[in-house]
């Protein structure tokens, strides 16, 4: 993961502020620039909303402790990779798996006090998470990175650590699975 040179992070100057200064400054910039991406990725990889906060903190603390190892401009690549591992560790804990899935699906349900749009949004996200949870973890990672984060196959390959061809084939299967599950649930719901 350390030799990634894919321009995921945009122009270096956007991330370079503070990098020559204190680690604290760069660490804060790291969070400010990338927090939404990391948080969203964790959520779509199945981390429950209640745990996403702590999980995101773990990702950024890992990032902060390894600041010196992260090449300028590769921050997001590193953080994505760390987020995948954090989410995967949470998933792998089989003792918690059931609760994990249950709360991941359930905690997005809107409260009755939410305005209609917010309700709709949260329901849509809950539905999406339900679709995603039907996939294999490998497929899910690829699908989220490609379809939601809209990264290119080479970028995803670098983050996940598999060949580009594997990304393509997993994505194909993931899309198929997603479409089939969507169709199934829709048929069930009508």
């Amino acid at each position, binding site marked *: 993961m350390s030799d990634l040179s894919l321009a995921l992070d945009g122009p270096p100057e956007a991330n370079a502020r503070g990098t020559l200064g*204190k680690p604290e400054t760069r660490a804060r910039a790291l969070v400010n620039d990338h*927090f939404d991406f990391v948080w969203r990725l964790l959520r779509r990889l199945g981390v429950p909303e209640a*745990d996403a906060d702590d999980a995101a*903190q773990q990702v950024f603390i890992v990032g902060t402790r390894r600041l010196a190892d992260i090449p300028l401009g590769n921050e997001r690549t590193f953080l994505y990779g760390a987020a995948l591992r954090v989410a995967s560790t949470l998933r792998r804990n089989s003792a918690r798996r059931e609760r994990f899935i249950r709360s991941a699906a359930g905690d997005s349900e809107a409260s009755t006090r939410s305005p209609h749009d917010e309700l709709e949004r949260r329901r849509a996200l809950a*539905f999406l998470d339900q679709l995603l949870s039907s996939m294999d973890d490998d497929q899910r990672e690829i699908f989220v990175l490609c379809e939601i984060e809209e990264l290119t196959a080479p970028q995803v390959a670098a983050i996940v650590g598999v060949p580009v061809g594997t990304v393509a084939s997993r994505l194909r299967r993931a899309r198929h699975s997603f479409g089939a599950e969507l169709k199934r649930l829709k048929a069930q719901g009508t």
Partner: protein
Amino acid sequence: MTETPSSDSFFDKPEGELEAFLLRIARADAAPKAARERTVQAVGSVALGLGVLSGTAALGSRTTLLKGTSWLVAKWLAAGMGTGLFGVAVTQGVQQLVSEPASSPASHALSAPPRTPVRPNLSSALVAPDSVTAVAEAEPPAPSATAPATPAPATPAPATPAPVVRAPERTSAVAPAAIGPGFSMAPVTSAAREPKGPPATSSVAAEAPAPANSRSSLTRELTILEQVHSALAQHAPGRALQALDDYHAEFPRGSLQIEAAALRVEAVGQSGNHALAQRLARAFLASYPNSPLGARVRAFSEVFVGDAPKP
């Protein structure tokens, strides 16, 4: 399971459109602002923490993902510094420092407190036991019998007007008390009434240098808890429990008692005594309802719900 969306919703869209809609919603999903602020706080502390403890074994160059204890101490530092209670925590060392003025790197690192507001539950749950004692010294019911340096010096720290950093209703109803080897968690309700500390820019927190020996003992505490962690990772609950007992024996009033308590829940659960693990989890959650470790402990307690009746 998610319930099927109601009929007059996005769910009525044609499949292709629905897929595009879902992905669009997902791409626009953003983290809560408060979560970002808490993380900024935490990483700021880690960056500072590296300055404080670099060269020590515990927070050195070993960088493993999910390195629980380092992560915990980062939060602990965030809580302490963010609320200024860190300043309170070191007041016990102030007297000692009068005679031995240590200009340690820690004092430099700690002199730049984070500027963002701190998560209240962090401040209440992860407050250093030292500071709890300092607060509790004004209140007789607190168990401070084991305190080695009980007379609190009349420093400005406790007297500083202390605006509550964030929503006060989220602060803990009980404060952490000393957790002995038997995992007793007598609540100290008095501390909850105390203001949650001066703003992060408090000069008290900035000027009070950490005693040198507290650094090394914190490192030692971290080292033990990391041993617990690695034992748990290797599914060796016996070794984890032994290390936890060592921890309590060595640091009856250690700074990482809450973390140790959470780890004990995990270790006991791993050892197969699910009923006890569940009791400990409940005790933990009752004593530290707002601890960020609560989610983890709760997860265990929920997992054990089905197992509890079994021997």
